[in-house]
């Protein structure tokens, strides 16, 4: 405890005494703020980031359209927050663990998750790593160090603290970055995670995407404070607030946060100020709770356009390249979607595997009874029945081999 000063008047503080500034480098026109210095970001990396941002945007647009056409049951867009998510990811080591909330597909795109991999999850087909068990957008990749998404909010935050503690013990120089919304930060798990990370000196980056809303709830009804950042003081944790639409600032802040985390085994909180340009999800219609005018004002701050202007100014990018990229991405999305849609569902056995490392006797009994039942009514359970039909199975195997 560093309590030294005494006072003899009952003076109350509320922390408004100082406000937390926002770190910004890039202006919307693509030039730097006065006095700002761009971080070291070489040509190839800058373009990899930019391409990932555009690819995420295109994927989101196409998949929302697919959802609207009834081809997909559900979708969630990263739209508006690509710089926050991808800028942060690019500042990490590729082997660092990422634990995301659900709106961070950009991180996967940046790390090389293919459109095929996305589509397999979105359509829950037999190639989905998650075996068709979770709703669309619950991606995961072991090889890309991206923890499978879980719908309950904030549960991943203390898990990140634990994961990073394990990394510290392993001494492999890796850290964990956990993404979450300003809404999720209200959960008790947030408090637990940050406090434990500070006490146990854990190399974890808490990356809060403050996009102004938790579904319909504006952040003004989420907390009375100036955002999430001041909470760091309660844990004695390093904190920075950053313009989440500013790719350079996000990248620079996260790189420095990672340095603090890994070199000093200290957790860091980053609050990225941004805006969810799209609906909360394909089930949501934001016109019920916010104005078009507000949305428009934020659309003017588009993070992709901002980076594009910077790249064009540098001579690293052109209108033609943009057009070509967009077209090829759109085509690729449509092609992979068609492939994935046609793939059969996971086999019936996947209903009971992975509950435990081995199927228990009771689960085996339940599966056997289910198979008997489905054999009796195959038309009623087309998905389950197909994997009981040896001809279909053989056909599937052949089809797989052919690709």
């Amino acid at each position: 405890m560093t309590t030294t000063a005494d006072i003899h008047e009952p003076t109350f503080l509320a922390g408004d005494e100082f406000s937390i500034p926002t770190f910004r480098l890039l202006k919307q026109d693509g030039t730097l703020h006065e006095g700002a210095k761009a971080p070291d970001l070489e040509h190839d990396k800058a373009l990899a980031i930019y391409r990932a941002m555009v690819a995420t945007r295109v994927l989101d647009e196409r998949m929302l359209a697919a959802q609207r056409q009834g081809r997909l049951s559900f979708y969630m867009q990263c739209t508006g927050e690509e710089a926050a998510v991808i800028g942060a990811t690019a500042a990490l080591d590729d082997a660092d663990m990422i634990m995301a909330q659900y709106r961070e597909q950009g991180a996967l795109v940046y790390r090389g998750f293919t459109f095929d991999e996305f589509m397999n999850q979105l359509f829950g087909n037999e190639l989905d790593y998650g075996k068709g068990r979770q709703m669309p957008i619950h991606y995961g990749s072991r090889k890309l160090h991206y923890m499978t998404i879980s719908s309950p909010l904030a549960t991943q935050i203390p898990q990140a603290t634990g994961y990073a503690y394990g990394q510290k013990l392993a001494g492999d120089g890796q850290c964990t970055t956990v993404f979450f919304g300003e809404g999720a930060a209200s959960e008790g798990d947030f408090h637990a995670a940050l406090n434990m990370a500070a006490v146990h000196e854990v190399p974890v980056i808490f990356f809060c995407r403050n996009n102004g809303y938790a579904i319909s709830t504006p952040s003004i009804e989420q907390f009375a404070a100036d955002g999430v950042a001041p909470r760091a003081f309660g844990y004695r944790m390093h904190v920075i607030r950053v313009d989440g639409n500013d790719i350079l600032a996000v990248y620079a802040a996260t790189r420095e946060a990672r340095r603090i985390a890994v070199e000093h085994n200290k957790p860091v909180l980053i609050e990225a100020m941004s805006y969810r340009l799209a609906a909360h999800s394909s089930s949501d219609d934001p016109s019920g709770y916010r104005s078009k005018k507000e949305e428009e004002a934020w659309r003017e701050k588009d993070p992709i356009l901002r980076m594009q202007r910077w790249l064009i100014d540098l001579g690293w990018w052109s209108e033609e390249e943009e057009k070509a990229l967009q077209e090829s991405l759109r085509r690729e999305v449509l092609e992979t979607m068609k492939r994935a849609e046609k793939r059969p569902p996971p086999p019936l056995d996947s209903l009971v595997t992975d509950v435990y490392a081995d199927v228990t006797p009771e689960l085996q009994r339940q599966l056997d009874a289910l198979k008997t039942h489905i054999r009796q009514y195959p038309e009623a359970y087309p998905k389950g029945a197909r994997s009981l039909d040896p001809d279909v199975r053989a056909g599937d195997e052949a089809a797989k081999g052919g690709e």
Partner: protein
Amino acid sequence: MPTMNMLQAINNALDIAMGEDDKVLCFGEDVGSFGGVFRATSHLQEKYGRARCFNTPLVEQGIIGFANGLAAQGSVPVAEIQFADYIFPAFDQIVNETAKFRYRSGDLFNVGGLTIRAPYGGGIAGGHYHSQSPEAYFAHTPGLKVVVPRDPYQAKGLLLASIRDPDPVIFFEPKRLYRAAVGEVPEEDYQLPIGEAEVTKEGTDVTLVGWGAQLEVIDRAVELAEKDGISCEVIDLRTLLPWDQDSVAESVFKTGRLVVTHEAPRTGGFAGEIAAAIQERCFLYLESPIARVTGLDTPFPLTLEKEYLPDHLKIVEAIRASVNF
């Protein structure tokens, strides 16, 4: 009589309760001006003001902690948990606090005014975090009441009774019926009894017991079974805690056979309790083993949801097996 879907019936019940008693408050995530993600609380903020119908921060343990305090103070909170799958962060507040409040204080204080509403159950392609049926956890918790309506009429009458019940009630709303179930619902105030099952169909050969959306599934199964000449008695439990053992036992005395169904996993599910209690009370009357038609002992799946669910075909097979035992 007007026709309402289940959401409208619930909204109507909340409106009546708030209109009649200033102490009734509705709150939860997105419950305020937006009216909830399913719109069960639509227009209540407009009508009764922000102080009585409002958004909370996104923290279920806080919502129920806050609601417990409010109820102890004498208010009548109706707290919404956005999905029953997200009730677990509040489990401590419910199981250790809500359920024990009156008992531990020797009735100095109670949270009887509290009602917790939560959409629950599967059938909407929601995967394991938008489909769970956690009723058995709460039905193992003395001090709570657990109520599940099967249609709009029941929803309104049971919700009004729950809000006014002197004990805390967890009110699970079968969300796949929210818009799908439509029926006649009186405009005026009425209540249906808590703790009483309802025999929705009389029969002589076998008793079927279920709650919530399973009643519809049971009805489809019964239609098939009756074509085979099997006479079915159907019981909607309506309240799981305290449950109406007498009604079920009476029916089984008559039919000698019992099939219980729920969506939740089999092991430890509430059908086990019913089977255990009924085999004890009706031992000499039972002509075949009590059957359970339930979800599998797995998390709730997505792509293979149809295969997982205890549908009418599985139920009719259980009925046949029971009768042909």
